């Protein structure tokens, strides 16, 4: 029926957009108002955001289960074994955390040796490739590349502190670069980036951008 379709569109598209706009405009404009009701409402919304963020973590985990579960069930060559390892580890850590608690010695040991250490290992792997890339990619081909090459070497000498110990004048120059040209350039980039962020958020709040809703029905 026609009425049902209209009602359906209101429920599926219009009401969510209205929610974004009302909440967004309320929080944006009421911030400077020192009123207990306003502050209290903003506080409640902040707590809701915290709870919803926790639920959103669950979405990430379910996506993982779906993707890797499919690989295991289809026994995809070269993929199903690592996927099975991922699912088993995820389940083991989850069960341990729920059965004991995050404060228990067992969970702390697993976190220390597996979760935290594993994450640091993956991060450090990138370090090897960065080290190699610095040597292979930083070439004095043109003015641009030469500028990046020289300042990168200066900064590395400043950081560890080769310049300070052996070339003090170079160190003074690098400190000046950081305190003046770098600060100015970084500030300009940040202002531009901030303007971009504000435009994006205003487009969402004024419903000009509805891409967050996903597919059209």
């Amino acid at each position, binding site marked *: 029926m026609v009425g049902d379709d209209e009602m359906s569109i209101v429920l599926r598209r219009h009401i*969510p957009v209205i929610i*974004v706009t009302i909440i967004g405009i309320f*929080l*944006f404009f009421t*911030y400077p108002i020192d009123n207990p009701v306003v502050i209290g409402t903003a506080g409640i919304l*902040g*707590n*809701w955001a915290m*709870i*919803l963020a*926790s639920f959103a*973590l*669950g*979405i990430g985990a379910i996506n*993982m289960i779906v993707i*890797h579960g499919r690989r295991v069930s289809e026994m995809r060559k070269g993929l199903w074994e*690592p996927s099975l*390892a991922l*699912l088993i*580890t*995820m389940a083991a*850590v989850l069960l341990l*955390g*729920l059965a004991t608690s995050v404060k228990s010695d067992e969970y702390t*040991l697993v976190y*220390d040796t*597996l*979760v935290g*250490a594993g*994450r*640091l*290992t*993956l*991060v450090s*792997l*990138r*370090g090897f490739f*960065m080290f190699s890339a610095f040597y292979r990619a930083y070439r004095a081909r043109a003015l641009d590349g030469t*500028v*990046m*090459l020289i*300042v990168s070497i200066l900064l590395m000498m400043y*950081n560890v502190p080769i310049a300070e110990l052996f070339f003090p004048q170079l160190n003074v120059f690098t400190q000046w*670069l950081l*305190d*003046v040209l770098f*600060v*100015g*350039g970084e*500030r*300009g980039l940040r*202002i*531009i980036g901030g303007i971009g*962020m*504000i435009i994006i*958020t205003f487009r*969402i709040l004024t419903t000009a951008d509805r891409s*967050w*809703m996903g597919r059209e*029905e």
Partner: protein
Amino acid sequence: MEFTINWMMVTLSVLITVAVYSFLYRENMAFRLAEHVIIGSFTGHALVMAIKNINESAVARVSVGEIGYFIPIILGVLFFTRYIREYDWLQRYPLAVVIGISSAVAARSFIEGWIWKSLQVTISTPLNNLDHILILLAMLIAMSYFTFTIKHTGVVGSITRIGKIVILLVFGLTIPFDLISRLGSITSRLEWMIQAAPYVTAGATLLVLLWIVYDIATKGVTEELRT
């Protein structure tokens, strides 16, 4: 050597690290397994913390009479309707709340914190000092590179070219900081492995070296190895 749980977990950690580092030679199944174990463990941990937080922040409040906190619980559950095609539009409700809140807070804080503060300090700083003048100039010149309403030709073109150099200077000074941080991560892992389990580390490393020697002996020094 006592085969305690602690020893076993430390050994597992060392083996996973060596397996990950075997990727430096080439991609292999041990690396893939280790990588997936790490990702699985971190996802499991994130889930544990999320459940703990929902329990403390929402369920606990509802159980002491704050009925209003049923609303975020219901909204949170609606997130999971994305997996049911017929009802996946329901996830737009919790998304709308999250996006409304985060957009407003972000917009306000970016205006006040990033833009207004930067402009206020820059404009109010007296230009009685070459460094202050250069900071202002560097800021304006870097920003000019991103203005596309005027064609980058002539004088404007020269300014934007200088702007590009300033931006490259910023990147050239930023990226080494990241590298030093990564070198720290490498040092941290290697130092821990050598101190916590030197024999296991040496044994695992020897295994990897033997595998490399075997690989080169059977396949020869390929073009990929030469790059």
